[in-house]
């Protein structure tokens, strides 16, 4: 059975040291979560969170572009204009509409992906969240119950305060 424990750090360096030690003991980024009231940026390799947001945004833009071109094409042929065989769909004069809708796709995908990647709306409510004190960094660790003492000692060695089990 796994449980959660947390420790509070005054400095980012101390938190980095604790994370490095835990990573060396086999804990992955999925077991470790840092909480802070402002973004805490760590050196590369400490607690990387790979992201596909840029790719998703490009994909959103491409999908909206294809959809809007298809839509405009469909609407212009939907009314049976007698044109003597001349084409009635023209790409460039509708270029602004295509551009804006492409951008709308990118915007909506950026927002949607942010919600997904941050895990905001799909957070497991049973996982405890520590209270964040201003200007402090809190590290939450998921570990097996029998590992509790070892992890708590590792956090304290790295300079953590108020180390304890999260209810």
């Amino acid at each position, binding site marked *: 059975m796994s449980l959660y424990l947390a420790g509070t750090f005054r400095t980012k360096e101390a938190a980095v040291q604790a994370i490095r030690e835990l990573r060396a003991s086999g804990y992955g980024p999925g077991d470790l*979560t*840092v*909480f*802070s*009231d*402002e*973004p*805490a940026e760590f050196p590369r390799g400490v*607690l990387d*969170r790979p*992201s596909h*947001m*840029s790719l998703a*945004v490009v994909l959103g833009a491409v999908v909206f572009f294809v959809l809007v071109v298809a*839509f*405009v094409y469909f*609407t*212009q042929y*939907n*009314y049976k204009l007698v044109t003597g065989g001349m084409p009635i769909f*023209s790409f460039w*004069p*509708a270029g*602004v*509409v295509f*551009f*804006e*809708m492409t*951008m*709308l796709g*990118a*915007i*909506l995908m*950026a*927002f949607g*992906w*942010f*919600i997904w*990647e*941050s*895990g*905001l*709306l799909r*957070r497991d409510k049973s996982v405890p*969240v520590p209270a*964040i004190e*201003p*200007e402090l960094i809190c590290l939450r660790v998921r570990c097996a119950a029998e590992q509790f003492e070892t992890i708590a000692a590792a956090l304290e060695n790295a300079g953590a305060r108020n180390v304890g089990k999260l209810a």
Partner: protein
Amino acid sequence: MAPAPIPYHQVRDDLWRPLKGASKRYTLTLALLSAVALWGLIAWGYQIRVGIGVAGIRRPVFWGFYLVDFVFWIGISHAGTLISAILRLTDADWRKPVTRAAEAITVFALMIGGLFPLIHLGRVWLFYWLFPYPNSRLLWPNFRSPLMWDVTAISTYLTGSVIFLYLPLIPDVAQLAEHARGWRLRLYKVLALGWTGSDREWHALERAMKLMAGIILAVAVSVHSVVAWDFAMAIAPMWHSTIFAPYFVVGAIFSGLAGLIVALTIVRKTMRLESYLTPHHFGNLAKLLLLMSLLWLYFTFAEHLTVWYGNEPKEMSVFGARVSGRFSPEFWAMVVVNFVVPFVLLGIRRLRSIRTAAIASIGVLAGMWLERYLIIVPTLSMPRLSAAWGRYSPSWVEISITLATFAAMAALYLVFAKIFPIVSVWEFEPHTQEEE
């Protein structure tokens, strides 16, 4: 010597203080602004009931104050998103206390600017004809029409701007939710989306903001280019110009900056945020304003020089009316407030201060409104067929609606500043506060 850093709890207290209660002066100001906005709504209601004839627009000037206001407010909307996006992308640290104030201006200015095509419609209840749906004759909107370009551009920009304002607001409302009660608690909890402050959330937020800044920059430039093309696509004297799009974009950033400086000056004074919105921030914004003033002058000069040198009779009629004819008082007033005043007040270091930046900005706002008037009305008054020339004078309905939009903008801003911190708390870094 650098000032001592402000402790975090004090930053939070100072920036949250304006959210608590409402002073008598605040309530009175809001009531007055709401009354003016309501008067504008009544005037619009009167126009809807009686017909568009109650406005001063008639042949040959079918675009009057409403279109001037439309272009003006869309220009003001470039305050936030564009400025904030540029400063975010360039990692300009000094931007942090000013971005939210700027982004809020964008959203409200767009909401107001987006109303004008509806006000101008006359039969406003038929506005849904602009939506792409098949009517009984299977006729869809004409996507090649600049009117449809406006609809798509403004919808995209508004959607993007609201998200751009909302994303960095999430950590702040999450903190506010911990200390709020009643309706505020419910509102903040919904808006916070369950934010906990985890590194996963921060990473996603920072990535999203970077990407949004890039996207919104492209959209903002396109929106004002589209507004410019509403004019430039017509073969009308002094409209059919290849530089109209960049000219409008420059003008939009110029007026947006001026709007931002005015708003920040008021916010700083009324909410006692002197420690957060420092002369350093105003100095940087003033320098940007001066730069935009010079760019605006360059574009205005280039636009008028080519017309004058070309000496095409129809174009020269409008040129003459602007520069030395019946529109010349407005034209030269525009040049004075858009260039001479900012150049003197902001260009001379000794004169540059928060007060002079605010004075110059108020002048620029007036000047940019005049510029939009001078682009629209003289050209429409003097079409290519001289027998069709006419005059335009706005009616009380147009004047009321115009004034009401300014009041509505101020009222919306006041309400926003009462509900959300106008300076982003989590982005404000007391340890890196700049030296004044």
